[in-house]
């Protein structure tokens, strides 16, 4: 079935564009980059059609990567229903975003570099999804982290961009550390990292071991998928180009954590403490990020916090045992969040770079296609009845209620806040009077609009076209829950309330937001400054680590001990030489004295030796 072609086509695109892209014309770069991803998508379709129903996983083994006594890791790829969904999302939405980027990046420098990095990202993401053991998954995991760093810092001449790239990579590293520890523990416990073997041995393992593994994996997922406490890199990652935000930080990379957690479901089922931790962190993150999102003025930051919040929903789904619901939301979120980002990119492109919503307004007449596609996405994310977002979010909330009712209520409030901030952004951007300086906001070219339209259709109808929970029923046990229309109504009502509130505050009576802000000055400042979390981290963690590192490790160990040892050898030789130099007095008589003295010593030594032996 040649599964390896799926990731390798984008890798080929990366190689060609990376090595020769500088000399290619834009057309050739486009053809190589976009062509490789589209071909990959076509191959995915072909493979899935050929595989048919996929009741069992289909795997291919390529070569043995590590062989050490009883421990071996192979380069294996496998496809089951979960993988199939991920493959379609990654390659499908990836293709759309690549097409979009042709238009968005048309006037930017480093054109071929951008597409090369995007292709590299696709390669790693596909390796991550296709892997059938934890180590190969980790290869993809690290690789997407690297590409995220490269793409966030794409405008490398801007310090805030490179800082953001550093931050993303470093915070991810903390998560990766947890992942690595989990893998070590897994090898110790199960002796292998292969999915099939680990999951079949999991039920027999002691719960404490599984809990530790689960919590460590959660740490890794929290880093990659921007959950509390490691979410701080995602808002800063908006420094990268908007297609990057759409692809990596909305649809694919950040969902890797959810995917990995869902894949490890067999471990988590037998470690309830860890699963509870997932749910709690998920709901807490969802609520927390939503509150911050309500006060942001940069359009991309709003959606960034929204991503963090929606990822929290996905984790909540996995944590309460409704893995299919979590993956379902992953899919619908990919549709509407990618659309929201691409749409905001279209707005930014129309305004020649303006991102502050306070400088926007009244754009719906000028960029209608962008406006109404974003409207579809906003409806979906708000859980407006009968959009795909509604279906997936409801599935999660119902499962949460089944697990612990308080989670349902917090989730519903968060849904209301989600609707509020998304429509706040929508109204601020497209309604009212134009507050900006750009005189001719122009609609984006067709190459950017077509993906928007496709995604809009998917946002509205995708939930019906792809009924994930039933599809994944072979992998994840479905929770038996009655369809509780009351709860569904309350959740939808919360969403509608949010939309209404946004309309009132930003369209009907535009003076209200400022009034609220000034009356709740303290709370507003707190929320606007993201609860000063970054500052707290900086003071509590970053500064002590850097300072301690500088003092202890750099000055103390590196310069002091290691350099000291090396230099000390030199200094020691110098001082010994200095002492011995005094012997070189140039005075022949002292030399003769020394010779005689040495001769006496030798004679004594010989005599002693002889006396000993005799």
């Amino acid at each position, binding site marked *: 079935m040649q599964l390896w072609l799926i990731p390798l086509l984008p890798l080929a695109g990366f190689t060609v564009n990376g090595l020769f892209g500088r000399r290619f014309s834009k057309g050739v770069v486009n053809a190589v980059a976009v062509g490789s991803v589209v071909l990959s998508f076509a191959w995915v379709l072909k493979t899935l059609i050929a595989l048919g129903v996929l009741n069992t996983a289909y795997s291919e083994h390529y070569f043995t990567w590590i062989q050490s006594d009883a421990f071996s890791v192979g380069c294996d790829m496998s496809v089951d229903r979960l993988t199939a969904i991920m493959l379609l999302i990654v390659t499908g939405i990836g293709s759309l975003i690549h097409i979009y980027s042709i238009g968005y990046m048309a006037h930017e420098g480093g054109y071929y570099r951008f597409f090369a990095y995007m292709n590299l990202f696709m390669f790693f993401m596909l390796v991550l999804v296709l892997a059938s053991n934890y180590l190969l998954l980790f290869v993809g995991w690290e690789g997407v982290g690297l590409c995220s760093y490269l793409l966030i810092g794409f405008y490398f001449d801007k310090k805030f961009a490179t800082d953001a790239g550093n931050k993303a990579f470093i915070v991810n590293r903390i998560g990766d550390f947890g992942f690595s520890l989990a893998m070590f523990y897994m090898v110790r416990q199960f002796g292998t990292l292969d999915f099939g073997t680990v999951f079949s041995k999991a039920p027999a393992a002691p719960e404490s071991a599984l809990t530790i593994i689960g919590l460590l994996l959660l740490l890794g997922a929290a880093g990659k998928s921007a959950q509390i406490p490691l979410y701080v890199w995602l808002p800063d990652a908006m420094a990268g180009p908007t297609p990057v935000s759409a692809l990596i930080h909305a649809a694919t990379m950040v969902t890797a954590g959810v995917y990995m957690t869902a894949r490890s479901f067999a471990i988590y089922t037998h470690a309830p403490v860890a699963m509870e931790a997932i749910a709690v962190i998920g709901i807490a993150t969802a609520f927390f990020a939503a509150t911050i999102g309500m006060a942001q003025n940069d359009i991309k930051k709003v959606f960034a916090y929204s991503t963090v919040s929606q990822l929290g929903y996905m984790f909540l789904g996995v944590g309460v045992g409704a893995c299919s619901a979590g993956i379902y939301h992953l899919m619908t979120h990919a549709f509407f969040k990618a659309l929201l980002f691409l749409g905001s990119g279209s707005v930014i492109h129309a305004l020649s770079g303006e991102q502050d919503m306070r400088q926007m307004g009244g754009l719906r007449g000028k960029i209608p296609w962008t406006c109404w596609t974003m409207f579809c996405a906003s409806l979906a994310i708000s859980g407006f009845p009968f959009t795909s977002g509604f279906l997936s979010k409801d599935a999660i909330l119902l499962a949460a209620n089944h697990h612990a009712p308080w989670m349902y209520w917090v989730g519903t409030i968060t849904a209301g806040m989600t609707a509020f901030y998304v429509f706040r952004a929508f109204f601020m951007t497209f309604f009212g009077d134009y507050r900006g300086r750009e005189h001719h906001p122009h609609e984006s070219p067709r190459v950017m609009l077509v993906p928007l339209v496709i995604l809009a259709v998917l946002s509205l109808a995708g939930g019906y076209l792809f009924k994930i929970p039933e599809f994944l029923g072979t992998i994840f046990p479905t929770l038996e829950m009655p369809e509780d229309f009351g709860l569904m109504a309350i959740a939808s009502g919360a969403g509608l309330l949010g939309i209404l509130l946004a309309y009132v505050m930003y369209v009907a009576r535009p003076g209200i937001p400022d009034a609220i802000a000034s009356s709740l000055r303290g709370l507003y400042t707190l929320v606007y400054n993201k609860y000063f979390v970054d500052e707290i981290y900086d003071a509590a963690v970053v500064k002590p680590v850097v300072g301690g590192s500088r003092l202890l490790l750099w000055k103390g160990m590196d310069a002091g001990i290691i350099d000291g040892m090396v230099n000390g050898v030199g200094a020691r030789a110098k001082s010994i030489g200095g002492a011995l*130099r005094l012997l*070189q*007095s*140039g*005075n*022949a*008589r002292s030399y*003769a*004295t020394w010779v*005689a003295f040495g001769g006496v010593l030798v004679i004594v030594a010989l005599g002693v030796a002889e006396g000993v032996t005799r």
Partner: protein
Amino acid sequence: MTQVPASWFLTLSAVLFVLGVAGFIFRRSIITMFMSIELMLNAVNLSFVTFSYQLKQVDGHLFVFFVMVVAAAEAAVGLAIILTVFKNRATLNIDEINSMKN
């Protein structure tokens, strides 16, 4: 007693040798130091001959022969060097010929 114990010869040789070393260490004139070297060589010659007598072999004499040859050659070259040094430095005081200091 009509025979001289050979150990007396050896003791004499040791005394002469030590006197030679003393001359070398304590004298400042180069020529005198050179003569002390010759004194040392002579002392060693004496002990070689003594051992040759003791072992009733002629090889000791051969050693002395070669020592003498080498001492002669050394004296020739060494005195030539002293001449050159005197030409350059105008002094025969060893303590003043210390350009190898430090």
